[in-house]
């Protein structure tokens, strides 16, 4: 069989407490399945996510990292996700520049009412990561060991 069917990626999802984490809860209470590969870390706001967290996840073996927050304009803290958006745009662009497959990182805005969107987002993200395969290149960044 091809490797993709066996490959079980490790995926870290950072979700803001007010919208996306609640959206994930809604996906759960609506029984909208998505792969168990996704593990959610609760943060107060998407602006709490430091690029360091994302790189650290890759360093430790994650195959994909997704950040979910309130829709722009709906931030519980009014402006947090706008900062997150700029930070992540630049970070992703840098990873792309370094030759890391873009697609291993994603930002998606999911409101507390969007259980369906949360589930669909996770399904498509896992699908994407499975198609990319294991995170060799970010792993390869370990140039010496």
């Amino acid at each position, binding site marked *: 069989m091809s490797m993709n069917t066996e490959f079980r990626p*490790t995926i*870290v999802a950072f979700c803001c*407490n007010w919208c996306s*984490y*609640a959206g*994930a*809860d809604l*996906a*759960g*209470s609506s*029984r*909208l*399945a*998505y792969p*168990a590969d996704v*593990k*959610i*870390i*609760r*943060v*107060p*706001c998407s*602006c*709490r*996510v*430091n*690029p*360091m*967290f994302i790189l*650290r*996840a890759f360093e*430790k*073996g*994650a195959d994909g990292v997704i950040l979910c927050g309130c829709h722009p304009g709906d931030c*519980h*803290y*009014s*402006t*947090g996700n706008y*900062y997150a958006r700029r*930070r992540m745009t630049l970070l992703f662009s840098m990873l792309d520049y370094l030759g890391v497959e873009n697609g291993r990182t994603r930002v998606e805005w999911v409101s507390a009412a969007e259980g369906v969107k949360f*589930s669909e987002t996770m399904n498509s993200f896992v699908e994407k990561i499975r198609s990319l395969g294991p995170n060799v290149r970010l792993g390869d960044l370990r140039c010496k060991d």
Partner: protein
Amino acid sequence: MQRIGVFVCHCGSNIAATVDVKKVVEMALKEQGVVHAEDYPYMCSEAGQSRIGEAIAQKGLTGIVVCSCSPRMHEATFRKAAERYGLNPYMVEIANIREHCSWIHKDMAEATEKATILMRAAVAKVHLNAPLQAGESMVTKRALVIGGGIAGIQTAIDIADAGYKVDIVEKTPSIGGRMSQLDKTFPTLDCSACILTPKMVEAAAHENITIHTYSEVEKVSGFVGNFTVDIRKKARMVDIDKCTGCGVCQEKCPSKKTPNEFNRGLNNRSAIYTPFAQAIPNVPVIDTTACIKFKTGKCGVCQKVCQAGAIDYTQQDEIITENYGAIVVATGFDTIKLDKYGEYAYGQSKDVITSLELERVMNAAGPTKGHLERLSDGKAPKEIVFIQCVGSRCSDDRGKPYCSKICCMYTAKHAMLIRDKYPDTNVTVFYIDVRTPGKNFDEFYRRAVEDYGVNYIKGQVGKVIPQADGSLLVQGVDLLDQKQILKKADMVVLATAIEPNPDVRKIATMLTASIDTNNFLTEAHPKLRPVESPTAGVFLSGVRQGPKDIPETVAQAGAAAVKVIGLLAKDKLKTNPCTAKSDELLCNGCSQCANVCPYGAISYETKLINDHGIREDRRVAVVNSALCQGCGACTVTCPSGAMDLQGFSNRQILAEVDAICR
């Protein structure tokens, strides 16, 4: 080293049917620092909570992980339980193995593995949890109400009645606001002044209320319970203590060519004026832009005629600084400008007026002394056309996308009053929809149609064309009759959209309160916290929050007052301990964090820092934990990592990442 207890909830079969809870317990016991693990059918039950208590007592637990439903559901429950059993509530973490696991996965092995990983991440986090104490801040037992309309007055009276001091800041020379300009009120048709004036007097006479008219808020700093506000008291040029309100100065004032704001510019006033007869305080102000004395230096009539010697041309603006525990924003509304609506001929013909102008025309104290007459020639109009939704429900930039809410009702009121007083005058209303939700509202509207014969036409007006004979040709459509209508009218009244007063941005910025795309202030929650702003200690009253009529405004004013009273009744405030905290040894004082803080919670101090024996004065960031809401924007901006968020620290989140990726 923490001693951690892991409690795995079955949630009946909600979790246990998909997750092998015994296995999770078994895996938990292998984790570093886990000294106790058990499962139980309902952890959140009283019995479940007491098991946590037992384990805390017997095993000396220092940290707890509950594997259960979403923390949004029961985090508070388990934190309280921990506190009850002597553990700091912030030593509890939840692993969400229901919404994020058992409910979405079918395969037991897979779900159990994921639940184990989520448990592991929570354990890793708890290792780095620190006991957090909710902070305390003192509450200044005084409230500020910005805006002296009916909303502000009602809020102030309610707060004052509860025994707290209140200051009202009103930018015009008198309190009263929009309501004082109205003639009658729907749906009861009682006279606006008759019901408002007693309220104004009550406020003025109230021992707990201080009114600053002709004043504006200049600067706001501080936080919930501890605001410091600078108020600019504009120079009145009239000594408020000496003036007796006799009115002679206004009579004698030679400069009488200034458009009267109170009458919407429909007539003129003197340079020294009180906006209306019942003004509170009944003390005039000198409009220095119109006053001959101020323009040419020669005149001084008012000073000469004033028996009380109250006129003082040397007065200067004065800034007073006061402390408040709470601030209520009740700055009200105005009608939108109609310069983009050329088709209605507003501004081209004096006989096309807004509804608010009609209120003044109908009012006995108004420019026509209450006679309904055309402003162009003073003749009685025989044919009046009302146009609804002028600028409301409009998706382009000419108007506002929202419904202004009050127009249907006041138009019915106007139509009814006209038909009542002038039965030979025909009234036609062009409407899109008639919206009358409210007690006795639809009945009121039906009375206008059924008892007073007001002609309601479903359709809009495309154009108003002033005719050579002074009449107005109204071109509209009757959608039900499928007819285009050309109607000759003597007067056209536009139900103009309302919008928040234009100073909204300035005030919102000062208060760090957010405003929506229509410039209305945003509520902390649109349904559950409608009178609070997202900024703690700032409350919303009246149309500033959204369009509403008088009863609703008064109700909201009361609600805002209750929130203020609830706040002022406390001596101290507990603050959310999950706030940002700056490590002074690492802080560069670079101010980047303050730039992104939405709450203005970060300030800078120059402090003597002892950095491993090196003592120096350094500029360091200081977080005001009462203002900080714990979003964490600052933490990522801080390059040195000096700024961290308690409860969601860098190391805690990294520990979770590590545990998941292990």
